[in-house]
């Protein structure tokens, strides 16, 4: 890989990042949250859309059955 070796001596060195650790980890953490929310939202909507679509279809079928009875 271009760049070669890992740039940190130890794990605590990696977390500390020469004093910039807090900034870097907050930035990456926030990115993860925003990207995860971007996935979560349409997945939830999809579930809702499918559920309400099926419900609407059931209603149509039921009302047709009722019409036949009466």
């Amino acid at each position: 890989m271009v760049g070669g070796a890992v740039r940190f001596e130890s794990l605590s060195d990696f977390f500390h990042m020469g004093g910039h650790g807090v900034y870097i980890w907050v930035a990456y953490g926030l990115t993860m949250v925003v990207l995860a929310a971007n996935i979560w939202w349409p997945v939830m909507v999809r579930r809702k859309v499918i559920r309400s679509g099926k419900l609407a279809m059931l209603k149509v079928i039921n009302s047709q059955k009722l019409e036949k009875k009466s």
Partner: protein
Amino acid sequence: MFNWLHRLGSSKIFFEISGRWQVSLLSLSLLMLAGGSVWALLFVPPDYQQGNSVRIMYIHVPAAILAQSGYVMMAGAAAIFLIWRIKLADIAVKCIAPVGASITFLALVTGAIWGKPTWGAWWVWDARLTSTLVLFFLYVGVIALRAAMERQASAGRACAILALVGVVNLPVIKFSVEWWYTLHQPASFSLMEKPAMPAEMWLPLLVMVFAFYLFFFAILILRIRNEILVREKNADWVKRWLEVR
């Protein structure tokens, strides 16, 4: 060619084709995001001036690039909708806006976090920062306008016009670093020129930019499919699709 475009403009055909690609596209983008992040966090050498804070660049720059080209795509879709009245283009405008807003938010916040250790301030009213904030409000404006209007057809047209008017902000963002030479540095990355950074720094950046684009398209597909299902809920093919879910 035009026939092919016309076919893709049909909601049903878009739904069928995108259904085959959505999972692999999202997986690939997540894989590249993970790989690029590990690369940026572990293997990239610290900058000789900025130290390790340069690692924030690997999310800030892709987010900022995507924030702008997302708007270009939204405005393009708006133009297509206004000229040819293709419904799918209106759906695209609607679906790009929230994703674009969230990515612009990310660019602004990661920029602020990067600014603190390197500039000594979270925020300055620099031309580029201000015009990017305007970009964020434009996205939010498109979302709010649609939510505020009841009739879908007129809401679509109004949003398309707003999206097109907002295009004037894009050259302002692009050239802000040259017109007003304030705090934000000029672009460090260009398609045309050889980057001023060594390959070990720009190669992971390229990976992250690509990953962000793929992620954007993957999310867009998820959202557009939902919107198609809602708008075409009375179509026979949607009912058949629902039956097997």
